């Protein structure tokens, strides 16, 4: 087992998750020293309101590597966890939507800094969870961090690109500006456990929305590690809430929740299931992003994922002396 490499920026080397040290797993070197240290294993919990509670149901489920080896027990979120998370997300809207765009951009950039600091840990989790070679895992993690930096820069520009003054035919001031829609439910991609996750999450929060994210069923560990990054990045508690568990169980409650404004169904890989969720979402006319199974996470995103969660508001005022 190779000891963890020092981070080039001088940060202390990240602690590997216990799986890499105490269990054989794909790609692990078998030259473990005879007197190997007993690892302190991580408990993977939910991320709600900036804290890491267990599921109120007390349940957990087994997360395995791509080769089927045991990796961890992750919390298995329940309906009540979803409802609690939505409540917390709603409570966080005023402060996050009301923060300046500059402030949101600063927070997102800080998140990118924290991601960079943990790069090796993410590479390991992605490699083992998705069954990738080291180089492919590194590419994915690099792309995820760079994606995060790209989105951070949009915070104080998207309004300029999507909003505008309107030249109406009368003496009126008329301005259209985009506002965040509010609370967004997100089904993270099932397969791309970090790059795909970042690609659906960053556009939601850079635009001032809060969210409840349902992590990939089988590959949730990078999501919880990402939550740890979020918790140390000045992101106000409740802006991102992340639930691990069975999406088939939790997604219907999220899609049908009357206090959720929009839902991204990317992680609903079965078309019939995605349809049922879209029908449930129609009850309060949520804005829906449908799954696109041909989505290439490595391509530069356009604006669509930001525009999907923005509401243009048009204000008129007469001009007169």
């Amino acid at each position, binding site marked *: 087992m190779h000891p963890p490499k020092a981070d080039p920026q001088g940060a202390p080397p990240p602690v590997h998750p216990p799986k890499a040290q105490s269990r054989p797993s794909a790609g692990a070197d078998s030259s473990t020293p005879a007197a190997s240290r007993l690892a302190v294993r991580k408990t993977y919990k939910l991320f709600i309101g900036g804290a890491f509670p267990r599921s109120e149901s007390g349940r957990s489920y087994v997360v395995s590597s791509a080769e089927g080896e045991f990796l961890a027990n992750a919390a298995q979120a329940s309906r009540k966890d979803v409802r609690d998370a939505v409540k917390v997300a709603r409570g966080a809207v005023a402060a996050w939507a009301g923060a300046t765009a500059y402030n949101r951009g600063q927070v997102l950039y800080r998140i990118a800094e924290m991601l960079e600091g943990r790069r090796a840990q993410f590479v390991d989790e992605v490699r083992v969870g998705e069954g990738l070679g080291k180089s492919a895992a590194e590419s994915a993690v690099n792309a995820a961090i760079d994606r995060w930096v790209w989105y951070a820069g949009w915070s104080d520009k998207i309004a300029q*690109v*999507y909003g*505008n003054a*309107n*030249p*109406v*035919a*009368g003496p*009126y001031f*008329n301005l*259209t500006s985009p506002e965040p*829609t509010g609370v967004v439910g997100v089904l993270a991609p099932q397969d791309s456990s970090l790059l795909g996750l970042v690609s659906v999450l960053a556009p939601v929060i850079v635009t001032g929305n809060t969210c409840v994210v349902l992590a990939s069923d089988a590959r949730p560990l990078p999501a919880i590690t990402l939550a740890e990054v979020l918790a140390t990045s000045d992101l106000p508690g409740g802006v991102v809430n992340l639930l691990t568990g069975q999406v088939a169980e939790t997604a219907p409650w999220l899609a049908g929740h009357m206090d959720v*404004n929009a839902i991204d169904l990317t992680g609903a890989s079965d*078309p*019939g299931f*995605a*349809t*049922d969720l*879209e*029908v449930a*979402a*129609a*009850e*309060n*006319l949520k*804005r829906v992003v*449908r799954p696109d199974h041909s989505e290439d996470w490595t391509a530069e995103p*356009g604006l*669509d994922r930001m*525009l999907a969660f923005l*509401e*243009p*508001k*048009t*204000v*008129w*005022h*007469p001009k007169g002396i």
Partner: protein
Amino acid sequence: MPTFEYAPAPESRSIVDIRSSYGLFINGEFVDGRSGDTRKTVNPASEEVLAEVVEAGEADVDAAVAAARHAYDQVWGRMRGADRAKYLYRIARVVQERARELAVLESIDNGKPIRESRDVDIPLVAAHFFYYAGWADKLKHAGFGENPRPIGVAGQVIPWNFPLLMLAWKIAPALAAGNTVVLKPAETTPLTALAFAEICQQAELPPGAVNIITGGGETGRLLVEHPDVDKVAFTGSTEVGRAIAKSVAGSQKRLTLELGGKAANIVFDDAAIDQAVEGIVNGIFFNQGHVCCAGSRLLVQESIAEPLLDRLKRRMALLRLGDPLDKNTDIGAINSAAQLERIRELSSAGEAEGADRWSPPCELPARGFWFAPTLFTGVSQAHRIAREEIFGPVLSVLTFRTPAEAVEKANNTPYGLSAGVWTEKGSRILAIADQLRAGVVWANTFNKFDPASPFGGYKESGYGREGGRHGLEAYLAH
């Protein structure tokens, strides 16, 4: 009663020529319906039958969609934007040439006063076609990608409150972006849409680019659920919008919805009171209150509630209700017996729940569908008349003390289409506008519309915007 006796000033009907029956406009021609079902359309001010129109059935909807598909694949979807623009400019010009005729026809079929159809509806129709004509060859500058493509065939269903204007809001951006259209006007107001079909012929629009099929709810359902429709646009009730959203689930169909509203019109104690009164009256009595963005809830600051209500009642007593074709008329007919019944039922509920009802003395004509302008005071947020959309000339009045209370009450609704703010303090205008969860905020004005200005709702008032650059988004593939 009005203090002045005005002589009647009727606009002449002779300019319109209403046929006794109309076919469907498919592939550039008027054709008979295939099922033989028809429906009569009625003048709501007199209950006279105006004409018989087709109730389009499945075969008719299939034919219309097929015509739109063929036109999209072969002609319109391939056409240069500059040429699409020229067709749209032609249409805008013909609308202007026939403006008086269209305004009279609209008032006869819909019941709205001629002053509104002449001065608001029809001019905006022409303006929408002019505005979107100009976008047709500039789409790459619209902010939706470098090479934006149309979506394909659009199925569009519109309401009866602004028949030709709602048609313009739907057809102009769709055609400009390169889509073809099958549009169903509302069952009670088909005539201006059928006149528009003639205008398409006069402009020599390629056959099949626009198809107009008349019918009721079932025709609409057949159209929005048709498998060869790529994009659905609907304006109407939240209830039907919700059903449509469910019906497109799991398909690739794009959807935009413009649904109901229960807008708060907020008047602060430092508002310009006379202007605010005009704005309140315009907000709820324009178009007989048949407006999704009507200012149907007046939220007035407690300290000025009494003097404001005095002036409001005095102003309401001067409103003239009567013949829509009379140029003196302020309030026309309610569009249908069904709508009149709904307004009556909700107004009775208002009284039953304990609000205080007031109308000025108002003589209603013997025939036709009429409702006197009505005001309810002592309304609470829990009352049905504060929560449900009445879609009639009925204003619910609530009070507030602090700005925070006004905002909370204004936002306390599943709707989110529009809102009004009246105050002379600039910083307050901007702060309150920021906090209102509504797609359109009118500050010190109300019910202003323009083709360059995006219109649409938050929450259960729907999604998507019509008008402006944002109005193109729904009609471009991405």
